[in-house]
């Protein structure tokens, strides 16, 4: 095959001095070519190479390179030391010994800072079942819980627990193998089917941890050279997925679809100018943002995605199981068929109070991940009893729309209290059961009912290649975190468990603003929610009020 390529290859222009040599080369090549032709069947090979050359010249080149590369890898060890670079300094053995003796590594980790130590010490430990009214190990007191994800109130559902016990008695706990090697249990297939039916997609694939889902799905599809257009406010898991993918990334202003459109137009122009070949293009964003509870305008997003021919990867980790009539998420809320979303991600740990995450989409999309999703392929499948728990939770949601109606009521109660407070800002969408609370900076301005964006655009344009918004909101992390922690402590003393959002300062792509996170639950009655909201309000007023 390589011979045939040479014989049809184009010789470059050369200087006359080389002519005799070239003459010889071309003569011998033509000899090789003709003797090759005399081999029976050679014409088919040539035709194959020619036509594949025509429809994709790079391919033939690539195949040859691949062959050479394969040979190289066979003959050359991956692990050989690299001495070829110009930068290499030749050293004698004794010099090396000396350098080795002199080298002092930094400590493996820096000791805990006082703030980190305080944070660990303040961590609530729940004794017994987690749920709407858990008992704290430290005080033995029962508290109202607005910190745990239990949106639809499925935690400790007796029916689900019974079914999980049944599964335990049939399957044991662990699956003891990755899905490819006898770790595909019938309940996993059932859960995938249940998810697909619930969302109305062709199929679904499950991962054994929600956090690892996005960071596995994104690099499974987005390769080097592909284009990702992503929201500046995406969650940590998505940031990591984008980081591994090594694709070209363009950022648009947080939850601002006009900015998205500008970026899409910009990318289109850029690609036209570069005459770049068609590559895979993705819009990556979240349904309800984990980082601040804002909600994306799905119909508009889909309109844009279809106009510009992008694939949409929508992470519904928060919105699945919490919004819509039966908890199907944003697609249900906006009445948009889930089939318009190419990759719909969700969390069964958050939405179904079980464990793991999923990606729903077409069969092509899910089958691809069964081979290319790293944390799917290289990790043991989910324990069967948790898969059964998730399946049963879907059944409960589907058959009892009432629980989400209660959730909507409870969210309204909490927002009713928070939105009247001057000392805080609430960036979250009014319908979001995940409510973030910022400390209001400076004198109060405008109504809190208006949903402020992370990067309030005031004319300035942000650079699409950078995560920095044009006019970043400035805040003092340390002070705000301290104030919020005081609020959390105060609320806990009054019997309400809430949590400050724990960030990985220094590891985030851009530092999110400190916030308190309320996860409203249908597991609490309206009365209890009113009481809890009142206590939170009092705590906020007490701590933030005394600031001024």
């Amino acid at each position, binding site marked *: 095959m390589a011979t045939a390529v040479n014989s049809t290859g184009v010789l470059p222009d050369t200087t006359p001095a080389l002519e005799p040599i070239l003459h010889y080369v071309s003569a011998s090549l033509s000899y090789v070519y003709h003797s090759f032709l005399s081999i029976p069947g050679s014409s088919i090979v040539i035709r194959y190479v020619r036509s594949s050359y025509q429809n994709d010249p790079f391919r033939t080149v690539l195949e040859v390179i691949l062959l050479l590369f394969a040979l190289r890898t066979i003959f050359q060890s991956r692990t050989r030391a690299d001495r070829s670079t110009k930068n290499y300094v030749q050293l004698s053995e004794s010099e090396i010994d000396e350098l080795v003796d002199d080298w002092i590594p930094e400590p493996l980790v820096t000791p805990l800072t006082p703030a980190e130590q305080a944070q660990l010490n303040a961590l609530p430990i729940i004794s017994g079942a987690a749920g709407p009214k858990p008992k704290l190990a430290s005080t033995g007191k029962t508290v109202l819980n607005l910190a745990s994800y239990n949106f639809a109130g499925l935690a400790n559902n007796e029916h689900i627990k019974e079914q999980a016990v049944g599964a335990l008695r049939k399957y044991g706990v662990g699956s003891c193998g990755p899905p490819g090697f006898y770790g595909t249990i019938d309940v996993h297939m059932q859960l995938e089917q249940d998810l697909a039916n619930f969302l109305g997609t062709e199929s679904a694939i499950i991962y054994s941890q929600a956090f690892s889902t996005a960071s596995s799905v994104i690099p499974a599809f987005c390769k080097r050279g592909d284009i990702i257009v992503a929201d500046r406010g995406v969650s940590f898991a998505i940031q990591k997925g984008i980081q591994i993918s090594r694709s070209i990334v363009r950022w648009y202003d947080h939850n601002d679809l006009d900015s998205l459109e500008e970026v899409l137009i910009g990318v289109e122009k850029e690609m036209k100018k570069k005459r770049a070949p068609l590559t895979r293009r993705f819009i990556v964003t979240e349904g309800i943002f984990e980082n601040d509870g804002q909600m994306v305008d799905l119909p508009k997003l889909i309109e844009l995605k279809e106009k510009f021919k992008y694939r949409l990867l929508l992470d519904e980790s928060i919105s699945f199981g919490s919004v819509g009539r039966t908890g199907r998420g944003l697609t249900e809320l906006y009445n948009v068929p*889930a089939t318009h979303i190419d990759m719909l991600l969700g969390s069964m740990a958050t939405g179904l109070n079980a464990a793991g995450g999923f990606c729903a989409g077409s069969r092509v999309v899910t089958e691809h991940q069964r081979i290319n999703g790293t944390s799917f392929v290289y990790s043991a499948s989910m324990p069967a009893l948790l898969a059964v728990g998730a399946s049963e939770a879907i059944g409960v949601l589907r058959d009892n729309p009432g629980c989400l109606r209660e959730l909507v009521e409870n969210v309204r109660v909490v927002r009713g209290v928070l939105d009247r407070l001057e000392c805080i800002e609430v960036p979250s969408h009014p319908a979001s059961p995940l409510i973030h609370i910022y400390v209001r900076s400076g004198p109060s301005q405008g109504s809190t009912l208006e949903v402020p964006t992370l990067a309030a655009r005031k004319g300035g344009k942000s650079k699409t290649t950078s995560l920095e918004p044009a006019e970043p909101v400035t805040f003092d992390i340390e002070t705000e975190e301290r104030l919020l922690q005081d609020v959390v402590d105060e609320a806990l003393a009054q019997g309400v468990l809430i949590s400050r959002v724990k960030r990985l300062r220094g590891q985030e792509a851009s530092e999110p603003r400190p916030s308190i996170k309320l996860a409203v639950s249908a597991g609490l009655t309206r009365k209890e929610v009113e009481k809890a909201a009142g206590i939170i309000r009092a705590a906020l007023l007490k701590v933030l009020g005394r600031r001024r």
Partner: protein
Amino acid sequence: MALPLSSSGSGGLFKLSKKSSQRTLTPSSAAEYLASLKAADDDALAREQARSHSPTPARDVVHASAVNYAPSIASTPALSFASTAPSSLSSPTTYAATLEEDDDPLVYPDNPPTSNDPPPSALHSEFGYCNNEEYRYTSSYRDGTSLFPQHQDPPMTILLATYISYLFLIAIGHMRDFFGKRFWPGYYKHLMSAAGYAALNSDFDSFYTRRLKLRIEDCFARPVTGVPGRTILMYNRVSPDFNVSFKLTGQLTRALNVSSYNYLGFAQATGGVADAAEESIRRYGLSALGPRLEAGTQDLHTAAEALVARFLGVEDAAVISMGFATNSTTLPALVSRGCLVLSDEYNHASIRTGVRLSGASVRLFKHNDMASLEQILRESISQGQPRTHRPWKKILVVVEGLYSMEGTFVDLPALMTLKKRYKFYLYVDEAHSIGAIGPHGRGVCDYFGIDPTEVDILMGTFTKSFGAAGGYIAGKKVLIDKLRTINHAFAYAEAVSPPVLTQLTAAMASIMGVAPPLLTPVGAINTQSTALIPYSHPGPAPAAILPSWMHLPPALLSGVEGNTRLRRLAFNSRYLSQGLRKLGFIIYGHRDSPIVPLLIYNPGKMPVFSRLMLAANTYPGAVPFVVVIVAYPATPLITSRVRFCMSASHTKADVDRLLRACDRVGDLLDLKHGCPKHERWTVDEVIDRAVELVHMD
């Protein structure tokens, strides 16, 4: 040129698109979408109703036989089966299938207990009954045994045939694509750019999957049901379209399971550990409802972490809900730009993901080759960072305790020597070795007799020996506390689920034994095996760590059963590894490794091996086996292999069966290229001299 493979079928060969078994949902309007959702809901509801009226047949059959076999057991409370068959076992699955096994040799022990013996503590199909104290061995490193047996090379002819096979497969694959694209363009639609969208997966990228892997797809991702214990129930399936899609036939096959990572046999639906897990579901539900750093920390988490630390003999430990994520979220918290990671070339994908996320520079060293590592260390330390020559901030060497594809143990003694000289930090991933090896099951440190506190970071998973899920990271308290605040999983990932925590806590406690023993074991335990080796090593589990509601049966509390499991696993591993070598196969890895890779080389032989083992017709009285075959890219191109995972749940008779089956298949497929003919033993000789073989070096 002829198309040799097209004889096997007509257009079917070119089929690529997965045929959807259900109606495809491509609604054009929201109303249609809602209608289809409603239809799906109604379906589900109907299914549920049908389900609650008819219990699963499969379960009934299995249990009927179990109860028949051990009617007397019900009277011994600690070993009671009473809880194993809840009356309303309405299985959540609609994958109803039948299993006929009235006389299945896998369900009954070959040497059933006599009236003098203690009754078996588990279902034979989950955990085999094997009471012969001869079939035990203690896994520990013996000075002088060569750690790394030289890999034998196969004859040149085999290598050549392997390369030619791949070339042939690739050539045919391209030819099929060439014609396929012209005559069956529909099947290539999703691989081509269409309507302004680039293909999600181009024909080029997916070539290997479509044209090589697809041919042997029936050997992968076989659906199963029940416990992945000593035996496993596999759904029989057929493919109407050359492995593009599969249909379940509605029949189950019970096969001997030599594939699951169930090293200590704790994958059980019955017994003390499962009872504890059931109790915890009732007490705690299924979820901790959030990340650890918010409100997802329960008393169970702190208890499990204390126990893991105690088990390993280090100061502190942290548990994370997925083994993969334990690596991929911890490594970026430890190293960053300006740091160097030296990673074994065969390290797991999770380590590679973690290193890539960290932004640190990375260099690979040859698998388990300490000379290569030392050379790279000398070079890296002396040269410093590329271009600037600034000294590296930290150097982290990442290795696995037991390599999952190779069956080799890390050369820990040599590594510790290097560590002293070169001052690097050491990260040992003990996913496969923890619980499985060492005289006390504490992993490679225990095996080599090295103080675990000398290793900076110990990582491991619970998915293997403990029959649970998730992973841990352990070391000094300052390190673990810091990791709790900077590890991604602690801030953002769901915490480990309570029943999973209970499973791992109970399994770990029963390996350690619980001190002080809360109950004096009487009668129920074989007195012979109570002669426990008194060890002080990391010691038994203090009863105070365990949740107060957890009541383990005496055999688990005393550590007798855990110890027996360890010694059974060590015996089985060594027996299989040595036996296969004596039969003439090329076997990689160390003799004490429960992972036993048998080299196949030729890609064409892989599926045949797998199918023959499953077909159970290799010799009269053969039983079906499910085996794992691995090839490129999980292994180097030519060294395709079968990987057996031994378990404490296997009996000697099970290993005998496996050896017999391999012996036959090995002859059929010409796989015996290990030791010369005159040194080989016959399979009968291997089986008869098993104990001698195990104690041989």
